[in-house]
C-alpha cells in the first residue's frame, strides 16, 4: 500500500470543514465593518439600529436564500425582483378584495412559486440557459405587472397583516424571527437532506449527477420553484412592511440579492456555497448601506462602494480557499 493510501485511512485531521472556515471569515469581516462603524458613528451600536440592520437584511435575505439554491445548481434567477413585484401586487389585490390576509399570503406564495416553476420548465424542458430564460421572464413579468397595475398603487392593509413586517415580539422585529426560521430551514435543507446534497452534485456536474441516478430535472424544478416561493414570501414582508405595493418595487431588489449571494461565497459555477454565507452576505451589504446613511455619505457613492465590496469579497474568498486547501 502506498504512503498516500495510509494517510487516507487515518481520519482527516481538520474537524472543521472548508465551508465553515469561509463563513467564519465572512462573519469576521462583518464584525470588522461593525467595529469601524461603531467608532465612526455613535448611534451605530444602539439596539434600535442593530435591529434595524437585521430587519433590512431580512428582506434581501429572503430573496437571496432561494437564489442561493439556484446558484448552487450553477443557474441564476434574474426574475426574482420582478417576481416580488407581481406577487406583491396580486396579493395586495386579494387582501383588498377579500379582506383576508391569509388568502393574500397564499396568493403571493402560489404566484411566486408558479413563476419559479415556469423558470424551471424553461431551464429544464426547453433547455434555455437560466441566465437568459429568467431575463426573458423578468420582462414578461414586468409587462404583466405594469398592465395589471396601470400605474396604480395598492395600499392600506389590515393591522394584523402589517404585524408580519413591522411588528415586534419580545422586543425583536417579527421579520427577524422569520429570518432565523428560514435561515435554519435553508441550512438544514442544503446541508442535512439528501435533496440538498443532490443539488450540490447537480451544480458541480449535471451530466455526472444524472448518470448517478439523481432526478436532475425534478430537482431543478424544485430549486427554481423554491426560489420563486421565497420571492413570494419576500413580497409578503414587503407588503406588510410598506403597507403598499406598486409595479416598480422589484427593480431595486434583484442586484442586491445577487450581490448578497456572491458576497456570501456561493460560486456562480455551482456546487459551492452555503445559505448561511448568503445571510452573512446580506448582512454585510446592509451594514455598509446603513453605515453610509448614518455617516451621511452621498448616495452617489453607494454603487461604487457596493461594487468594490463584491469584488473584494469574492477575491478574498478565493484567496483564503486556496490557502486552506
Amino acid at each position, binding site marked *: 500500500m502506498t504512503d498516500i493510501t495510509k494517510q487516507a*485511512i487515518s481520519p482527516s485531521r481538520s474537524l472543521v470543514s472548508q465551508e465553515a472556515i469561509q463563513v467564519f471569515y465572512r462573519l469576521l469581516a462583518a464584525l470588522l465593518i461593525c467595529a469601524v462603524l461603531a467608532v465612526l458613528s455613535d448611534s451605530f451600536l444602539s439596539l434600535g439600529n442593530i435591529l434595524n440592520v437585521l430587519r433590512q437584511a431580512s428582506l434581501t435575505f429572503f430573496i437571496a436564500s432561494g437564489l442561493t439554491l439556484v446558484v448552487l445548481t450553477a443557474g441564476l434567477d434574474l426574475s426574482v425582483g420582478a417576481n416580488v413585484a407581481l406577487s406583491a401586487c396580486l396579493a395586495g389585490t386579494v387582501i383588498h378584495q377579500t379582506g383576508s390576509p391569509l388568502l393574500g399570503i397564499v396568493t403571493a406564495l402560489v404566484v411566486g412559486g408558479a413563476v419559479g416553476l415556469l423558470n424551471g420548465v424553461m431551464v429544464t424542458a426547453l433547455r434555455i440557459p437560466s441566465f437568459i430564460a429568467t431575463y426573458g421572464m423578468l420582462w414578461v413579468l414586468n409587462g404583466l405587472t405594469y398592465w395589471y397595475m396601470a400605474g396604480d398603487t395598492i395600499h392600506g392593509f389590515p393591522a394584523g397583516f402589517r404585524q408580519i413586517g413591522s411588528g415586534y415580539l419580545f422586543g425583536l422585529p417579527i421579520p427577524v424571527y422569520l429570518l432565523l426560521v428560514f435561515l435554519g430551514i435553508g441550512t438544514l435543507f442544503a446541508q442535512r437532506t*439528501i435533496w440538498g446534497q443532490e443539488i450540490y452534485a447537480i451544480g458541480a456536474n449535471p451530466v455526472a449527477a444524472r448518470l448517478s441516478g439523481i432526478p436532475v430535472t425534478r430537482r431543478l424544478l424544485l430549486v427554481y420553484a423554491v426560489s420563486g416561493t421565497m420571492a413570494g414570501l419576500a413580497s409578503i414582508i414587503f407588503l406588510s412592511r410598506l403597507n403598499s405595493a406598486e409595479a416598480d418595487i422589484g427593480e431595486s431588489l434583484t442586484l442586491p440579492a445577487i450581490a448578497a449571494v456572491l458576497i456570501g461565497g456561493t460560486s456562480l459555477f455551482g456546487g459551492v456555497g452555503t445559505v448561511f454565507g448568503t445571510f452573512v452576505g446580506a448582512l454585510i451589504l446592509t451594514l455598509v448601506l446603513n453605515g453610509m446613511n448614518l455617516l451621511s455619505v452621498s448616495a452617489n457613492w453607494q454603487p461604487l462602494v457596493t461594487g468594490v465590496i463584491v469584488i473584494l469579497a469574492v477575491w478574498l474568498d478565493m484567496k483564503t480557499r486556496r490557502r486552506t486547501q
Partner: protein
Amino acid sequence: MSTAAMPLDASSATPLLELRGISKAFPGVKALDEVSFAIYPGEVHMLLGENGAGKSSLMKVLCGAYSADAGEFAYKGEKVAISSTADAQKLGIAVIFQEFSLVPYLDIAQNIFLGREPKGRIPGTIDRRKILADARRVLATIGFDIDPSTIVEKLGVAQQQMVEIAKAISQNARILVMDEPTAALSDRETELLFALIARLKAEGVSIVYISHRMAEVFALGDRITVLRDGRRIDGVRPADVTPDQLVRMMVGRNVDMTYPRHFADRPGEVLLSVKDLTSPTGISDINIEVRRGEIVGLCGLVGSGRSEVARAIFGADPVTSGEIIFDGKSISGAPDVAARRGIALIPESRKSEGLALLRSVGDNLVVAALRKLFPSGLFDQRSAQRTSNNLIRQLRIATPSARQTVGLLSGGNQQKVVIGKWLAAGSKLFIFDEPTRGIDIGAKSEIFALIDRLVAEGAAALMISSEQIEICHVCDRAYVMREGRIAGHLTRSELTEENIVRLGMHHA
C-alpha cells in the same frame, strides 16, 4: 512489430535531454521525488508506473507546463532552463497530452497549428490556403484521411486523438512525448501510430511513451523507466525483463495478469433481458440477456454502438422501440429510475460524465448512494464520511483524504472513484463502459477481483472493453456488436480474440 533502429547503448552517447533530481509537490502529494530521467536520440523510451506514480507530472515538467520545485535540465550535456512551454518548444519537445488539448470550435488545421499559424499578407491574419495545405500534408504523414477544415467538435474520440498526434508531429519535434496515446484508439489507428513511431525513430526522433498496456511496452520500447510513488525505481531494457518483473517493479508486489475468476457452475436467474431494443442514437434490434452471477462482455470496434446500448439500458438515452426487463419487471425511463431499481452505469468518460471534478472524493463516492444510505432523506456527514473512507480503503484509492478534490487525483484513481460510487449504492447490475481505460495493471486486477466478488455475491455485470484480452479473461460469454447491431454471441469456450475480431469486422 519489429523496429528498425537498435536501442542505443546508454553509456556510449550523451543524452539528448537529461532531467536530474526533479521534485514536484502538490498540496498533500509529493508527485515527483528527485526523479532523474534521460532521453537518448532516436529511442523509444517507455515510462511506466501505477496510476498516480507521477508519469504525467514528469512529462508536464519536461514540457514546461509545470515548473519543478527542484532539479535541473541538460540538453546535449549543457544545462538549460525549461520554465515555460515556449522554452520546451525551442528545444524541440512536443507532447501528446493525456487530456486533449484541442479547441472544439476551430477546424483541424487551426488546431494543428495553434500558435504557429502561417502569416497572411495583412499583418495579424492567417494564410488560409497555406494552413490547409500544411495540415493536409501532416495528416497524410500519419495516414489520417480527413478534410482539415472539419471542425474538431464534430470528431469522435479516436479522430481527436489522431488530430492530437498530427499536432505534435507537425512541430517537427526532436523529442515527442506520448501520454497514453492509444487509450482511445481503435486497432487500425493504433497500427498507423506504431508505423509512424517506427518512421520517426528512423529519422532520429526520440519518443517518450507512457502506457499501461504491457504488449505495447514490449512491442515498441527500447528502454523502460519505471516510476513508483513519484520516485524512479529503475531503468531497464525490454530484453532484460519479463512482464511479471516489470509489474513487480511498478506495483511493488506480484500481480496475476490472467485475472482469475470463480466461474459459477450454474448461471443464476435472468436479471436483465433486453428485447429488440432500438434507439435514435443508432442502435437497432438489440437482444441481450444477463443472468445473476455472470459477467457478460459487450465487444466490437470503436463506434459499433456499445456505449449506446449501455446508455439506452440505463435510460440515459431515449428508446424508440423494444423492451428492457430488469429483475422481472419492465423498466423504462430515466437514469434515476434505473438506478433506484439497481442498475449502475460506469460511463466511458469519467471526467465529463462520471465525476464532479471540483468536489471532494468523499462527496463523489456517496452521490449515487444517498437514497440507500439515508432512507429517511436526512443526510449525515459523519456516516457519509465513514462510507467513503471504507471505499477508499477497499479500492485502495490514492488520495491524501476523502476531502481531497477529486479532480486532483491521477486518472486511474479517478476511475476508481467512479466505480466506487456504485458500490455504495448496492446495485444489482453493473454496466461497465471501458472500466479499465487508463488504469494501471495493479488497479486493473483489483477492479476485476472486485467485479468477480460482486457477481459471486449475486450481482451481474455487463462489460464493455476495447481490450479483447480482458474480455476473454474475465467474461462468462460475450456479445459482439457491429454497426449498431448484435453481430454474434460467443460462449465461454468460443471466447477468443480471433472470434471477437472476426465477428466485429465488416463482411466477416
